[in-house]
């Protein structure tokens, strides 16, 4: 990733150990207006959450201003997730704004930046879907960056906890089977120049290093997907810098616009520097 310069913040703010006992007057107004109605979280916590987001904004985007994008930037996730290790999130962009990329931030995850999507010329930013791990009740923020370098955000509150340390599944050996196996489903029939949605399924345990193997009492070493590149006939569709918050066996839906029949190519690279690639015919061969 390397794009994010974290933490060079010379803040000298000192409070007593009442934790995030921040200056609540300062925090009372959510500066972006990007936070939706709170879903069952008391006011004191709300102030804390606003502070957390402010903190993250600073760490991730420095002094750049983030405007309220909630009129056209959508983020959706179940208010209460069934499985904290598999929380579905969908991101939508309405209208014709030229979007360079979208950041997905899970505020209260220890590694809060879950992913940064960058759209290529053949990409279609209108709809993205993925599944993530959520460690604690949290706001999830989408931050869209337009081609003229403006940032807009929208947020959603999700109640789920424990997703980061949840065991990765039945067992490690099994999780590693078929690693790198990639499938793509096209969700619409092909029509030249018309947007299409594709669902990308990657077999990868995406171990985040926080999962304990209950048999050995040891942490399973981290091994997760760093980047995913999708291109169409050689032209970039989407690049994803991902992180430990992506669920195991990632399923990512994205849009693209095929000018003519061709091939969709997917290239996945993980932290072991293993690369997995596969190409798919568009339209999909009959049968």
């Amino acid at each position, binding site marked *: *990733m*390397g*794009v*994010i*310069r*974290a*933490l*060079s*913040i*010379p*803040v*000298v*703010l*000192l*409070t*007593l*150990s*009442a*934790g*995030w*006992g921040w200056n609540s007057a300062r925090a009372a107004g959510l500066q972006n207006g990007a936070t939706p109605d709170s879903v069952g979280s*008391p006011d004191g916590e709300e102030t804390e959450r606003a502070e*957390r987001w402010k*903190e*993250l904004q600073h*760490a*991730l985007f420095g002094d750049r201003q983030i405007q309220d994008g909630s009129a056209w930037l959508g983020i959706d996730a179940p208010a209460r997730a069934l499985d904290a290790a598999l929380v579905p999130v969908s991101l939508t962009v309405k209208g014709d704004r030229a979007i360079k990329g979208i950041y997905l931030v899970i505020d*209260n995850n*220890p*590694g*809060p*930046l879950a992913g940064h999507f960058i759209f290529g010329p053949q990409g279609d930013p209108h709809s993205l879907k993925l599944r993530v791990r959520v*460690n*604690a009740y949290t706001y999830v923020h989408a931050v869209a960056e337009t081609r003229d370098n403006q940032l807009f955000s929208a947020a959603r509150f999700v109640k789920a*906890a*424990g997703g*980061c*340390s949840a*065991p990765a599944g039945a067992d490690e050996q099994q999780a590693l089977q078929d690693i790198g196996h990639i499938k793509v489903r096209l969700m619409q029939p092909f029509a030249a120049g018309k947007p299409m949605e594709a669902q990308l399924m990657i077999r990868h345990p995406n171990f*985040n*290093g*926080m999962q*304990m193997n*209950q048999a050995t*009492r040891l*942490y399973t*070493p*981290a*091994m*997760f997907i*760093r980047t995913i590149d999708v291109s169409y006939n050689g032209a970039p569709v989407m690049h994803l810098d991902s*992180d*430990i918050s992506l669920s195991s066996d990632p399923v990512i839906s994205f849009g693209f616009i095929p000018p003519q029949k061709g091939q969709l190519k997917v290239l996945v690279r993980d*932290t072991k520097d293993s690369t997995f690639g596969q190409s798919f015919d568009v339209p999909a061969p009959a049968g």
Partner: protein
Amino acid sequence: MGAEGVAEPEGYWEGDVDAPMPSTLHGGRVIHVEEVEALLRQGKAVFIDVSNTPRRPAELAPGAPWLPLPHRALPDALWLPGVGVGALTQEVDDYYRGRLQRATARNVDVPLVVYCHENCWLSWNAAKRAIGYGYRRVFWFPDGIEGWTHAGQQTKVAAPQGPAARTPVAETPAPNTDGTTRSDGRLPALAVLDLELTGDLGGPEFAAEHAERLKTESTRLRQDLEGTGLYRILDNSAAQGMIDTLKSQQSYLHDCNGCDLDVGRSLHADQVMVAWVDRVSGLILSLTYEIHEVQTGQITARKSFDFRGDNNNAWNHAIDYMVRDLTKK
């Protein structure tokens, strides 16, 4: 919370941490929010949080932000990660036993309240272990921090202690019997050990910077304390050999089962101050100090201060603030 019918295991639980739990603990008592609150109000119980700490995976891209949320605990809790796993190493076992002794002043009738999360066997194990150590009033709070917060109760930020955390630290105003004047009227002789750094040290590139900062800030701390006129600050050089030996054996002198008291004794100090900075990230840090009574080993004062920014300026402010606060008693 315990599902009906889950029997207590014979020994410690070694299965999934979040598997269904029993609703009982042999030799201890199961309590819920109201009782925890009552014990907290009485101010006699020791609260032990045995939740795990989040660890930064080494494989995380170097620039990727790692900003774990500050750990929230019951207001007076000691956070001792790792003492609730099924099988303890000798080191952690010794540590847990010793830490409880210090916290209870070796009184096995001091109530202990052990918890972690809702549905978290670690607290059951740790409570059972405390019963095994001989504590007679062990309370297991299975609803955990979630149960506590959902009931609208107060929490405080805590920092982890102990070898399993690699990062000691307590944040907890301890019984505050302020020992700043002796009965004979002379100033207490205080040995101030060098500041220590715990938590996420930020990688090898920060090592030199941190070593330098610990040195200058330790000097600043001594000067600030001297300036308060409340203490006679001792020169540690007479015990330098001992300090160096201890440093080679212990990860942290502020958390070595009282080895700091040996230093204090050899310097003829009345009290020893240990202070350390826990670095959660380059942005979030906390400074904690404890003053130990050399004769009894009692902690006479302890307090933590959050501060932001791992830089000289922020550290200076934190140290100055801490010393000012210490004079306000």
